[in-house]
């Protein structure tokens, strides 16, 4: 695995059907005759993390190229290609979210890439009649693109030159987590614009002319908008390069080496903690239940592009990947090896089979969500599912929530079976 792909291979990789190599073995075993060991499962986990981040990097580079092409030649087609590249880049990245909880190195880093929800008025123009931002956020309406300098909470910052470094420093400026200047969702906003349709069909409708230089530029400051998009797509690539290197084999001083040097049980605790936290608190709770119960499209994860169903789908997929010790790469190849599933099966085959079934049931539920959202004739994206009075939409989301909650219960049992005492994160000081 450490192979790097030439950039040209990307487009092929991204458009290739993902299911190609997924049918060999569904048992999640390595295929080797040796019984799986905890140390082996941890090593395979690092391999899967590395492959996932490498795919995220490959597809971020493709996104960077597509946005460069769009900026150079703004038009309907180049904009569509850039949006397509963004959607493709989410497929591996969302599968990496399961590494976030439990691995402080990921959690501390990911804000710059995937922070959400954001007060997009920090970045660019918004329709203020339908713009709800975080209370007390002095940065919510500063509009960096339209300004040479901004003042937030008494601090004045020169933003005349939009570099990656400057924009990274502006994250959480003024102390608000909603001030997200970089990452996937900032890029998403710059490609799609605000979704002003509320619960109705439709997503952001930013015109390509927002990037036309000189005459024909819409909404003003097209040069700065282009510079902004260019800077944050570059930053995404360099951030993912860094994280990919953390999981790369063959290094003695990266995170992979650190993890492999630990007691295997400590690393296994992180694996299970990542699965359970993403499953219950983050995905079922923050991203689905809040949005559903409050009928709040402001709490929709990919709100500009209406790609929320895929974010949820690939989050869930990442959880399953870790348990089965298997990841299908964006070019269709499979990475697999000793797994948590193998370890649990050695102690309690019935529990292993139950958990695998529940993970599969979750995938069915999010697949149904995805199918409804992508239906050719009557698409029902996530923001329509959560509309007041949409009983069918609510049922689809509830079914997915229930499946995630159920599988979390089984993840806890698996933890007990593997002798993991507590699911409290071990990075205690990290919460503040």
């Amino acid at each position: 695995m450490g192979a790097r792909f030439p950039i040209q291979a990307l487009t092929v990789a991204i458009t290739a059907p993902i299911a190609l190599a997924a049918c060999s073995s569904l048992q999640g075993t390595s295929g080797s005759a040796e019984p799986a060991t905890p140390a082996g499962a941890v090593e395979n986990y690092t391999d899967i993390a590395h492959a996932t981040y490498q795919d995220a990097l490959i597809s971020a580079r493709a996104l960077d190229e597509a946005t460069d092409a769009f900026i150079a030649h703004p038009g309907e087609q180049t904009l569509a290609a850039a949006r397509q590249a963004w959607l493709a880049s989410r497929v591996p990245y969302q599968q990496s979210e399961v590494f976030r909880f439990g691995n402080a190195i990921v959690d501390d880093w990911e804000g710059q890439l995937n922070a959400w929800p954001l007060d997009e008025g920090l970045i660019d123009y918004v329709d203020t009649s339908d713009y709800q931002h975080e209370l007390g956020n002095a940065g919510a309406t500063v509009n960096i693109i339209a300004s040479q300098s901004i003042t937030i909470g008494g601090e004045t910052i020169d933003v005349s030159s939009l570099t990656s470094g400057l924009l990274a420093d502006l994250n959480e400026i003024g102390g608000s987590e909603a001030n997200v200047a970089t990452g996937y969702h900032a890029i998403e906003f710059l490609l799609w614009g605000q979704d002003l349709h509320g619960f109705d069909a439709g997503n952001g409708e930013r015109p390509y002319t927002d990037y036309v230089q000189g005459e024909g530029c819409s909404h003003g400051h097209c040069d700065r908008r282009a510079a902004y998009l260019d800077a944050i797509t570059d930053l995404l690539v360099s951030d993912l390069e860094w994280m990919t290197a953390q999981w790369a084999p063959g290094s003695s001083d990266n995170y992979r080496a650190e993890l492999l040097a630990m007691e295997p049980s400590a690393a296994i605790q992180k694996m299970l903690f990542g699965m359970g936290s993403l499953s219950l608190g983050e995905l079922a709770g923050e991203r689905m239940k809040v949005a559903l119960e409050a009928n709040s499209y402001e709490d929709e994860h990919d709100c500009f592009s209406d790609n929320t169903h895929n974010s949820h789908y690939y989050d869930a997929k990442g959880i399953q990947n870790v348990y089965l010790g298997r990841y299908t790469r964006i070019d269709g190849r499979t990475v697999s090896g000793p797994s948590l599933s193998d370890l649990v099966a050695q102690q309690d085959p019935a529990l292993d089979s139950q958990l695998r079934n529940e993970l599969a049931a979750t995938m069915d539920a999010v697949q149904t969500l995805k199918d409804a959202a992508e239906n050719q004739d009557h698409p029902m994206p996530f923001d329509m599912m959560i509309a007041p009075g949409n009983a069918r939409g609510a049922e689809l989301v509830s079914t997915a929530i229930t499946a995630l909650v159920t599988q979390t219960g089984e993840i806890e049992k698996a933890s007990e079976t593997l002798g993991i005492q507590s699911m409290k994160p071990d990075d205690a000081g990290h919460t503040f």
Partner: protein
Amino acid sequence: MSSLARSVRYLIPFAVSLATATVSAATSPRQQWHTDIGQGYQQLAGSAHDLEQAANSYCNTPSDNGRRQLESAWRAAFLNWQAARFVDFGPIEQDSRAWQLQFWPDHKNLVARKVRYALKRDKAVDADFVSQAGVALQGFPAIEYLLYDADMQSGERALPAERTCRLLQTVSHHLANTTDALASDWQAFGDYYRSMDEYTGKTVAAAINGLEILQDKRLAAPMGVRPPHKRNKYLGDAWRSETSVAAMRASIAGFQQYLVPGLTRLLNEAGKPELAGKLVEQTDSTLAKADSLPDAMAPNLETDEGYRQLQSLFIEVIQLEQVVEDRIAPALGITRGFNASDGD
């Protein structure tokens, strides 16, 4: 003295308190918890009915006095909810009742958005509308918005404007129904709760989660404890009514009243009286600190002295949480699973 202890209206029926006091040896910890939490829910339901009644009286015959009574009824019911808020299992889980009572945190100011929408639209504000409108419109924060939001206090929509009154009454009615159902479902849940050993761990875990939320989300977040250390009163709960600290105080008092007796019993049964003593002592000290602070949080965020006061409370809450999580839970062999606030 905590506001809970001052509340005399909904004292437990005499027979119940007598029974709890006399059968001490035979009462199991879960039985104790079931009784105590049940009392908390009864108080909540009783005060939610008072609130509904106060809303009706005020809207029928508006007066300054009626308005004061309405505000104090809101506050009493809201604080009763804070006291029982740590319970995150059982009937509170049905239909997202915890959020129906208090949708929080509300990062996107959804409560304001939903209330404004309800006041603006053409169709009637009735029970059906409120029950379909999502949790942000169904509980204490929506009423708080009507009563305290600065923009709502002037102009043609300010209470007692007809449509605003209708919304106030309808939401109060919904809230009374929610708390009624909660209290009676808790009684029905009793046999199951008492018979299932796993609820011992769940009850302790609920207490730990409640203390963590108190410490991290209700205190550390508005205080800006985490980098970049920006203080923001809007991240606390109940900032519109300036009762953020009063609400925390009520939660600590609720912990003392509804959680500590059962847990003390459990520790004594397990032969850990020293831990029981430590629990009682730390709870008293945390509550005393909370009692010494004013109801609102914002003024204390603005001065160094005030901020130091909040820091002392923060430390007290951490210490209480550590007693339960790091000493009591391991001593009782209780392990925590995942909880709904494990995300970010």
